[in-house]
């Protein structure tokens, strides 16, 4: 059973629009949720992260909205640019989990100019 699910698998938006990437999880013990951005041929790089005590985290044009009761979260990319085209992975971990990250399968985001 997949612990972290992402949707959609692939998303295309126009430059300047807000892209919304979704993530849900199974394990209520998860309390740390990082999003990783990966470009082709590169390793995943931490983009933004949220802890379960918060319901929103903003960093530049990236915002995470977190709903603990529903066990889901979303990443909003405001004013998206072609350079934001990448694969985005939602991950989850729990305190004391020795940073054992559980990843989703990723959303491939394409920003059309």
């Amino acid at each position: 059973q997949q612990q972290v699910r992402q949707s959609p698998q692939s998303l295309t938006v126009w430059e300047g629009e807000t892209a919304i990437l979704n993530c849900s999880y199974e394990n209520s013990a998860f309390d740390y949720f990082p999003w990783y951005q990966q470009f082709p041929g590169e390793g995943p790089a931490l983009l933004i992260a949220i802890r379960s005590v918060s319901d929103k985290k903003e960093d530049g044009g990236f915002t995470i909205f977190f709903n603990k009761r529903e066990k889901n979260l979303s990443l909003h990319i405001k004013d998206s640019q072609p350079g934001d085209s990448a694969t985005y992975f939602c991950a989850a971990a729990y305190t004391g989990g020795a940073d054992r990250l559980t990843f989703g399968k990723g959303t491939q985001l394409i920003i059309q100019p």
Partner: protein
Amino acid sequence: GPKVLQIPSHQIIDMGQMVTLNCDPVSNHLYFYWYKQILGQQMEFLVNFYNGKVMEKSKLFKDQFSVERPDGSYFTLKIQPTALEDSAVYFCASSLGINTEVFFGKGTRLTVV
């Protein structure tokens, strides 16, 4: 930013042979990880390592797998003997401490033939 280097980027090996994947983690980091990603699937945790010891391993970390960091140099993943199902991209990662940012390498694509 800090870099985790993985060598080689691609390795092809005959089934049954031994392979060693090398990782040069970020220089002052203390925690080291291996993740495995089969094509089209999510990245999955294999093992984490601290102070010369394995802290936690997943059920994907078969008996044929071993990790070490001899003389504080490369952090290595050895597979002996290799099997066809070991074909995947292996990502090395490191972090300064527990619950701090985890940095990933670009991955080594292992093809077992």
